[in-house]
């Protein structure tokens, strides 16, 4: 169970004066059991890559396959199994609340299952389940999505993708614009969805989130792969060779500085963990 990206390139406005290479020769394998993060500066190509994963964008060259189903280039789109890809991969754009369009939360949540031909009798149950997943209750079903708070709108938009129970959930900067309370609630939701077996692909420039949760991190820099590895590997790499726009979290930076000076310190963003390790280490050496 994986999404395989091989030597993927994407050129916007090809053969026009506006031609821009957004991705060049990117390869990686995204396992469903893992949490994968794409990090990079604005304009590094991370959103472009994310949008290939459910065929919103099609490769200019190279390939993307979702559990064996290929995302085909534009000229072969008639042969592509869009349904299969879109059922497997749910994509949540940045500011997903802008995607809301129905008059009630119930219709918003019912929209995708209806399109999939789910019988009307089952839709209510799916909607309730998705609402519970984002910690809202059934009292929201009859409300107008446009009258909700910013954080609630975002949760409804995410619930509307969860109704289809995708195998992979791709999220583009899902915490942008949320306050601390909203950010923590959203991360808790993603942790749970991940635990329950959904593959998470997170596009973010919040390195603290990326380092604290990812099994694998892809670093993009001007459309090219500038690193692919575990959180520890990528942290150490960014410390040696900084990539513009990617600032290491202070706690992890502290650990890296200590290691450089010959002290033992775990590579982590978790302040409590690092503090405990340092205190233990000091007691041991006394």
């Amino acid at each position: 169970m994986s999404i395989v990206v091989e030597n993927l390139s994407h050129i916007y406005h090809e053969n026009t004066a506006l031609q821009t290479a957004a991705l060049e020769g990117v390869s990686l394998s995204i396992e469903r059991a893992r949490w994968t993060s794409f990090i990079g500066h604005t304009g590094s190509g991370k959103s472009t890559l994310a949008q290939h994963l459910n065929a919103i964008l099609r490769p200019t060259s190279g390939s993307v396959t979702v559990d064996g189903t290929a995302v085909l280039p534009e000229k072969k789109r008639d042969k592509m199994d869009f349904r299969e890809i879109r059922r497997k991969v749910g994509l949540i754009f940045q500011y997903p609340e802008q995607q809301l369009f129905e008059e009630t939360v119930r219709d918003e949540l019912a929209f995708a299952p209806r399109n999939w031909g789910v019988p009307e009798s089952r839709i209510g149950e799916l909607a309730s389940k998705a609402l519970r997943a984002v910690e809202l209750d059934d009292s929201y079903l009859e409300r107008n999505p446009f009258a909700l708070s910013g954080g609630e709108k975002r949760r409804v938009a995410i619930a509307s993708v969860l109704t289809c129970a995708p195998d992979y959930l791709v999220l583009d900067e899902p915490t942008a614009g949320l306050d601390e309370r909203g950010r923590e609630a959203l991360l808790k939701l993603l942790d749970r969805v991940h635990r329950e077996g959904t593959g998470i692909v997170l596009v973010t420039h919040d390195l603290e989130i990326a380092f604290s949760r990812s099994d694998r991190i892809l670093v993009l820099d001007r459309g090219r792969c500038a690193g692919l590895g575990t959180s520890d590997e990528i942290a150490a790499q960014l410390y040696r060779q900084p990539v513009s726009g990617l600032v290491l979290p202070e706690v992890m930076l502290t650990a890296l500085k200590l290691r450089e000076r010959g002290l033992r310190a775990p590579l982590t963003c978790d302040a409590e963990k690092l503090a405990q390790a340092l205190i233990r280490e000091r007691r041991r050496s006394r």
Partner: protein
Amino acid sequence: MISLRGVGYSYSDTGRPALENVSFEVRQGEWIALVGSNGSGKSTLAKHLNALLVPMQGACFILGLDSREEENLWKIRSSVSMVFQNPENQIVSTVVEDDVAFGPENLGLPAAEIRRRVDGVLKVCGLTEKAGKAVYTLSGGQKQRLAIAGALAMGTQCLVLDEPTAMLDPEGRQEVAALLRDLHGSGITIVQVTHRLEEVIDADRVLVLDQGRLDWEGTPPQLFRLKDIGARWGLEVPPIVILRERLVAAGLITKETPPTAEGIGTALCLSSSKI
């Protein structure tokens, strides 16, 4: 120095009041940090401390003077000064020393006294070399220090700062923090409004406002021991601050260590080489 008793304030007749039944004391020489998320009422509260706003319910006494009595305003404002978020809004002259002299001149002080005060506060604020320079040549941090210098030149005993570092870069924030530490050391009372918890580490006491009410009060280490700051108040304790707190508590680094990777890294290496 300042005493609030059951202060309430509303901006409109309908809707939630901006402040509800807020009571606390600020003692002479104390450093108080007033924290809360957006809309918690902290700026409204700050404006009560030098009578820019007066309570609708309850009362506010500053140096024992009731802020509702108009004849007290002059004395209140000359002993408690406000410094705002944007330094640009509180600088009135084009030359640094002229700006500092503006307040004392309005007090009608003799020229020699004005000179003495201007030189004195510029030195305290680290702006002596900038005395004759144009204000527009200053950095953000220098401008905010100039705004503080202007307040000090008036002989203020208490500074109320409303998010003084919100518009500054990290360097400017550190300059202002260092100045506040010096002023606190010299006996000035400080009330600092902020939502950046890394800035409250030097305060004697932290007050947390939530939806117009005083919800929590304690020392910075007590605050950082709480587990639910994010969910409860929408505030974030930067992880580096937590790391610093734990290491200070365990005696691995001193409490003067700044909450930065470089500061903590250097302090730990120093202390480990001593054993």
